[in-house]
């Protein structure tokens, strides 16, 4: 499948040496909608390691968003268990921050107001006095590259800028885990490429692996998955199931040159071959 394995130059120890952060064990989710019941996810078992960038791909309707929602605590699994650091996940909370597909920015707050929101009103901001809060908001606004645009309202921002705000808001709460549901889906292809780079930078791909947060990221786009991920979890549909987990042994930090490596297209092709049939079926049923 892949060519020679190359080691991440910043990680003296492979990911398997990191502790398990999230554990999904036999997770199943069933929706009872009126007459019929749909099984969105079935028997999903996966460990996510601390500091890992895990991407879930699959055809439409394969339940990847459901898996994310279960991790976020927005849905309860009907079977199986899901834990963070060994603790059961019972509901949403700032330890598992979520970035939504349509950004979910509060239209009545400026960039600053949005980034500050979780610190101002939520438990993530407890113990922070106003000055400390300002400092943190400032640092994350700058980190995502929006310094100077703090007083703008969402409707005045481009898609790429909105995505940055959503990211800053997410990170300002300093969650242990970042859950991202197709955050780049609404952007045009060029902006997407830029923001993939930015995402990795902000996540800390230039820093040692121990300083990175755990990310679970969902996407349709296979090339995006391969570019971003340490591992790619491939799901199939009807019912949603984990088909395979692929290690992406591309060196970090990643950039445009990474896409030119021969392993890149071969990894993409391999993943595509796993889901192609299902994707086809989705267009005719």
């Amino acid at each position, binding site marked *: 499948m892949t060519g020679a394995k190359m080691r991440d130059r910043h990680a003296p120890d492979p990911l398997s040496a990191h502790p398990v952060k999230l554990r999904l064990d036999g997770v199943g989710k069933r929706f009872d909608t009126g007459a019929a019941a749909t099984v969105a996810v079935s028997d999903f078992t996966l460990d996510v390691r601390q500091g890992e960038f895990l991407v879930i791909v699959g055809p439409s309707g394969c339940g990847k968003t459901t898996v994310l929602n279960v991790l*976020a605590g*927005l849905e309860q699994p009907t079977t199986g268990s899901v834990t963070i650091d060994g603790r059961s996940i019972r509901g949403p909370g700032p330890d598992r*921050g979520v970035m939504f597909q*349509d950004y*979910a920015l*509060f239209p009545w707050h400026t960039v600053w107001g949005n980034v500050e929101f*979780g610190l101002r009103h939520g438990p993530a901001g407890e113990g922070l006095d106003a000055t400390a809060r300002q400092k943190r908001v400032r640092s994350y606004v700058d980190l995502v590259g929006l310094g100077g645009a703090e007083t703008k*309202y969402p409707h005045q921002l481009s898609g790429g800028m909105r995505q940055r705000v959503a990211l800053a808001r997410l990170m300002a709460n300093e969650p242990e885990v970042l859950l991202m549901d197709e955050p780049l889906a609404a952007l045009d292809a060029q902006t997407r490429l830029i923001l993939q780079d930015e995402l990795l930078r902000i996540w800390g791909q230039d820093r040692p692996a121990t300083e990175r947060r755990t990310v679970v990221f969902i996407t349709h786009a296979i090339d995006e998955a391969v570019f971003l991920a340490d591992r790619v979890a491939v799901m199939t549909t009807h019912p949603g199931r984990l088909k395979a987990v692929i290690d992406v042994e591309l060196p970090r930090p990643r950039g445009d040159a990474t896409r030119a490596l021969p392993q890149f297209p071969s990894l993409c092709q391999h993943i595509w071959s796993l889901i192609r049939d299902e994707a086809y079926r989705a267009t005719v049923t």
Partner: protein
Amino acid sequence: MSATAIRDLRVPGDRTPGHAWPWRGLLLPLALVVLWQVWGMVSGNVRTPLPTRVLAAAGALIASGDLFSGITQSLGRVFAGFAVASLIAIPLGLAMGASRAVERNVDPLVESFRPIAAIAILPLAILWLGTGTAAAVMIVAYAAFFPIVINTIAGAKRVDPTLLRAAATMGLGKLKTLRTVVVPAALPAIGVGLRIGMGVAWTAIVAAELAVGAKAGGGATGGIGQMMFVYYAYSIELNRIVVCMIAVGLVALALDRLIRLGMRLLMPWLPR
């Protein structure tokens, strides 16, 4: 249809301006006014209201201060009633929009009374509160209540669920979410309710004052509606009636603009 007419037919949404005379909007009103004047002068009845006479009457009414005092009387009642309605309707609407339980229990009452127009309640109001300002305010409050509460409920219900989920993932509790997310998100809809409510309130006060004037015979109520009735029933000053009608229209417009301005100030984040 002739060829020219079809060419002139713009498909909806067409941006091309066509031959734009900026003043063609005035054509019809001017033509009507002229027609009115001519017809009136030809029919020769002294009582007939004519544009010229209406203007004169307007001058007289403004100069004597009657028009101003009539309008302020009515406006005072409208604002009072509107305030009462808002103070009840907005919190109630938010509660009903946010909590299915509250909604199911209160909604039957709201929906049962909603089809009963404020004016129908007027005789009851007079029975209970006499023909004065109290009854008028009650009618106005009743009238404005429904559009405000209904639009507030809709606004609270239609908050983008993703925003609610975002707040949940940031660890906010229900009450906090209500205050920091539901209320701001529902503001545009509340604004719509307030605009409609204000329009309804103004119509209600005119109707109430007219009706009271008709039955209580020019009592102590005052207000522009009453003025109109007096000019009909007692002094038969049709020109003055028309002046009052125009005033009613102008005040309605002004109130609408006022609310829109208020809403724009309250919601600086909305795109123009």
